[in-house]
């Protein structure tokens, strides 16, 4: 129980609680034993209205204003695909490890709030359109030839770009498509492109790992990690365009794109990670 309190505090990123016998209010909110399996507020007009505002505040940034997916997955097909209220509740409550989807802060979000959000999202429920096409085996071959220089999947690949081992849990197909075709301007923190010029005239290009008033830490395009004192630089340029090339139709055909997306959306972590 005490250990559980520590874990809850750490997972919710409160990171404020010493792992000592302090039982937190979170436990109050973390009680799930008596939780209903069906949304008790389903169809409740006030709950739908409240949930809409809560969704816009806390969820729409990743899942899109219509819950059709942006950085995070499309939620509208969840129920049609056999998802249940309590499964969705658990996902919201606990987050999805290895992705940007956080667990809720129980000091700020009550169980009732989660049900209200679900009541709203349920009103957006839809049957998925045509199931996506593509050959994941060919997609993997394309990935190994084209992408793995910068991206790791399940332990293999380069490290200049983000690890994609769980990208299928973290991004919807449309978000990955936008990134490949260049319509998404998203750059994850830790991967912002930067160019510096040292006093010796050395020009270094890479991604920014950290920065403060006096220094900057970079992984350069050869994957060298290095820090630089700003006082020793003659130029420091933070760029808005990702280091990742844009794969237009001239570089990646529609068919290959489908295959690659089919492979990427299936990446849910290695067997070891899932265990």
């Amino acid at each position, binding site marked *: 129980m005490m250990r559980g309190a520590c874990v809850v505090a750490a997972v919710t990123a409160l990171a404020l*609680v010493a792992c000592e016998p*302090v039982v937190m209010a979170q436990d109050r909110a973390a009680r799930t034993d008596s939780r209903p399996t069906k949304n008790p507020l389903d169809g409740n007009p006030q709950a739908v209205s409240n949930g809409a505002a809560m969704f816009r505040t806390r969820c729409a940034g990743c899942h899109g204003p219509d819950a059709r997916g942006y950085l995070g997955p499309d939620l509208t097909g969840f129920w049609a695909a056999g998802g249940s209220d309590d499964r969705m509740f658990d996902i919201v409550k606990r987050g999805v490890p290895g992705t940007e989807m956080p667990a809720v802060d129980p000091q700020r979000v009550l169980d009732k709030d989660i049900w209200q959000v679900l009541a709203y999202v349920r009103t957006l429920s839809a049957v998925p359109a045509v199931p996506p096409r593509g050959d994941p085996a060919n997609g993997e071959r394309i990935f190994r030839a084209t992408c793995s220089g910068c991206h790791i999947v399940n332990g293999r690949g380069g490290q200049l770009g983000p690890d994609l081992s769980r990208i299928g849990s973290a991004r919807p197909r449309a978000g990955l498509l936008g990134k490949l075709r260049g319509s998404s301007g998203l750059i994850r923190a830790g991967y912002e492109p930067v160019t510096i010029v040292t006093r010796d005239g050395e020009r270094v290009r890479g991604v920014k790992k950290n920065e403060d008033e006096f220094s900057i830490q970079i992984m350069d395009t050869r994957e060298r990690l290095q820090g630089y004192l700003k006082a020793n630089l003659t130029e420091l340029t933070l760029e808005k365009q990702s280091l990742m090339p844009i794969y237009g139709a001239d570089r990646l055909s529609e068919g290959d794109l489908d295959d690659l997306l089919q492979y990427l959306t299936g990446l849910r972590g290695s067997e070891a990670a899932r265990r």
Partner: protein
Amino acid sequence: MRIGMLRVVAGILVAAATSWPLAAQQPAALRVTAADLRDGLKDPTRWLTYGGDYANHRHSPLTQITPANVHRLTAQWQFQTDTLGKFESTPLVLDGVIYVTGPLDTGWAIDARTGRQIWRYRRDLPGGLIACCGLVNRGFGVLGDRLFKTTLDAHVVAIRRKTGTVEWDTSMVDYKRGYSGTTAPLVVKDKVIVGVAGAEYGVRGFIDAYDAETGRQVWRFYTTAGPGDPGHNTWRGTDAKAWEHGGGSIWVPGAYDPELNLTYWGTGNAGPDYNGSEREGDNLYTASIVALDADTGALRWHYQFTPHDIWDYDSTQMPVLADLTLGGERRKVVLFANRNGFFYMLDRATGKLIRAKPFIETTWAKEIRADGRPMLLPNSVPSEEGTKVCPDQSGGTNWMPPSFHPELGLFFVTARESCGKFFTWKDDYNPGDGYRGGAVQRLEGQYSALRALDVATGERRWEFPYTTQSWAGVLSTASGLVFAGGSGNLMAFDAKTGKNLWHFQSGSSLYAGAITYMVDGRQYVLMPSGTTLTAFALAEF
């Protein structure tokens, strides 16, 4: 090592061989008196209150460390709490010993020369604590041989300064209803004056005074006006009990003017934070400053910075008292850099507004009118679709204390340029549950900076922008230095120009302000960052 041990043995032998009482040969143990607290930093080797003195200047007369030699400032020791959490507290220093509170209701007495622990205090906290924004504490108060602190379960405790053991323990209110205690106490004469946090949970805020000897409650002032109180008619609308769960928490200590015998307190946001539809009216005395008689708690005057607050603009910033010559006339004023983005100057005898100017970009109000009320701007009310408002809910500044340099007439504040998208919905009040009525998305393009504001004009004299958002408090010294920081860097600046003169990367974010003290003729700067205290002094070479 061996020599040291021999000396200890020899010392014991000498003591045993003499018949004089030991105490007669040593200086009398110090006891902090009410006069000591009034004197503030007159003895600058000490630091006896959160703000350094009752005026909260956080401005030390010490001059050993100067703009010319500050580059030689070197870490002397570090103290680590060995807990999670963070320091938001201001340490006290007396007679070569530091007294500091930490996260999770901990506290320590520490040798100011070496950083070695003398005693440790830790409260056995109950389950079910409710604290919105960190299990923090902002420091001890001191009087006589007692230290005082508020606790996360909404008690006030007196701790023996010499041993760290509890002397009295008084419950302010039932913490299970959403109350907690994080403010440092303001000790005035024989009273310990404190308040409660919890405006995100529908508490009814109050300021309490307790007898320092016994812990008995002497007076209480409620920060939401109940039936029969002046201002109760500022709580109107569909919720007849709105005042009962209307917020107005107190989590940063006030100031005290001994001549007027008034204490000054900034009060927290109205609740629910972002939905004012059921609490029409100004909602006194939330988001205000109240001037209370130190002996009785009677309200002498109030000024409301944000009438009918719907942006979580707590006014829980540290009030700063100053005596200024304005238009040839000597005025007793209170300076207040508010979370709502305006820098106020009020007459502290009457509460009348003298001047208010924005110190960051504000889009909820254009200006503060001569009658003291804000001129609201359109499209600034939180909505279901989200409304962009600047500053965001964390404000133009927050709990981090500013400093005031009287000779330069400069007020140094950690300022935040930030905008947020304010959403609202309906929350039902349920004791102990969150009661915000909305939430805020932070928008991109935020930054923070140390800003020097000229109190004569209210205008910005200089700024130093930080790379990341800073929550650091400020310290200034008579030698012309300002200590603040960001991104984990403790920094020293030239007070006149804002030029950065020195920095030290502490490895964790700064959520409190530095203090300075002197021991054995050596000036130290003590900086809390993360869960570490670092003491700096000039390198001796």
